[in-house]
């Protein structure tokens, strides 16, 4: 499967948030403002790419060789937790401005199930190293696209005259579901 196909599939066709419904928590929680949503999207993309790379090594070089693929869940969770910690320290040291911009979102990524999902999926699909890297990156981009679109819509909803029973979480979830429906239009574009 070509690299380009993997990328397009992960960004639009099989968008993590809107097709697989993983990473819903930050998708709803951090989509009130476009700035914050973009920061979150970039941070998630960063961590997802790294996770995909590191878990590829763990899977292919350790778990498969030792014939213990059933450990993948546990191993991946450890990897993600450690990675996020490392990334946080690194950014804090090298770029205080970026660290401030990401703020609380960085440690929150530890519990973002989309990150775990990217690791599991690339192991399940037996991607090689380059494919895994591209897949991790484009899955992150897909997440960023979804959350930024959502934030844009929610900024408009904020000033719209929403009927009382639908205000707050209700209109947010309805919006998310319509957005997911819209993304269904991409299905069939590529068999992935």
């Amino acid at each position: 499967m070509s690299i380009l196909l993997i990328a397009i599939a992960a960004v639009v066709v099989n968008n993590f948030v809107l097709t697989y419904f993983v990473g819903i928590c930050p998708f709803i929680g951090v989509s009130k403002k476009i700035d914050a949503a973009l920061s979150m999207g970039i941070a998630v993309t960063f961590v997802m790419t790294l996770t995909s790379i590191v878990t590829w090594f763990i899977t292919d070089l350790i778990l498969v060789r030792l014939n213990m693929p059933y450990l993948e869940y546990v191993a991946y969770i450890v990897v993600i937790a450690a990675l996020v910690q490392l990334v946080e320290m690194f950014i804090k040291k090298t770029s205080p401005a970026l660290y401030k911009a990401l703020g609380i979102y960085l440690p929150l990524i530890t519990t973002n199930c989309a990150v775990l999902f990217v690791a599991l999926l690339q192991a399940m699909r037996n991607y090689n190293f380059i494919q895994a890297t591209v897949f991790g990156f484009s899955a992150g981009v897909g997440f960023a696209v979804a959350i930024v679109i959502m934030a844009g819509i929610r900024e408009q909803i904020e000033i719209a005259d929403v009927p009382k029973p639908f205000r707050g979480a209700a209109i947010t979830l309805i919006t998310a579901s319509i957005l997911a429906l819209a993304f269904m239009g991409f299905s069939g574009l590529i068999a992935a």
Partner: protein
Amino acid sequence: MTVLLAAGLMGLIGLLFSIGLGIASKRFAVEVDPKIDGVEKTLPGVNCGGCGYASCAMYAEAVASKGAPVDLCVVGGAKTAREVAHVMGVAVSGEEKDKIVAVVFCQGDSEASAFPGEYRGIKDCAAAVYSQDVSKRCKYGCVGLGSCVAACPFDAIHLSATGIPFVDAEKCTACGKCVAACPRNLIELHPLKHDAFVYCKSQDPGVISRKVCKKACIACNICVKAAANDNNADAVRLEGNLAVVNTKAYAAKAEYGAKCPTKSYGTYINIVNKDRVLGRQSVPAQPVEVGAVSAEGSGEGEGPGDD
């Protein structure tokens, strides 16, 4: 055997990562001035921006590393200033500051002012003003859609039943969010002690302003003359078609408005709980001025929407 191997492997991976993280935390350690943290802990943490910095954390950093004054926090007031000064090891300058609150300069509620139409656009004052689609006929008065209410981080400003915002003197911290939110610049910050203002910003000539609002200033000059007779000529002056209280000296007295024909010159309008703050005596929380208005207009719903 498999169990042991699995446990051993996970233990090994965990150990490797923890060693890696341990080394990384040493290598990437960032030295932070402990004073920044100390100052930030004493601040209220509401990030209102009243001090002039975007957040409490930024103000704390400015105090600790750039030598910003310790008494800028308007929310915590003198108490926080003392605590910050204690952390920084400096003396607090000056004594207790006068309590400053937001003052709403409009009395054109649904009873006093003409509302010829109904506004059906976005519920936001700025949007209503820029779209020229305001239900109220006065071009200078409050639109009554509550953008200031939405902007207030302290729940200190609310719309009365007749559609004019009023300020809770107890909760108001003079952070200035509502001042910035009002598209018609009807809200200003003034010391609570000062009790006399012309609660109108209309620059319409008296002939027009009298038609569009019962409580508009019609520039009749009575308060200006009253001030002049009191040897206080600079306290109130006429600026165009509007009498304005001098807010540099705050010398105007409430008596000057005694003969105001439209009662636009008033004292403590659109403010509640002022007595509690001023500590004169304990009065119940029910407002005097606004309470009277809201009691009369309670059957009228939200105000601006009514005709």
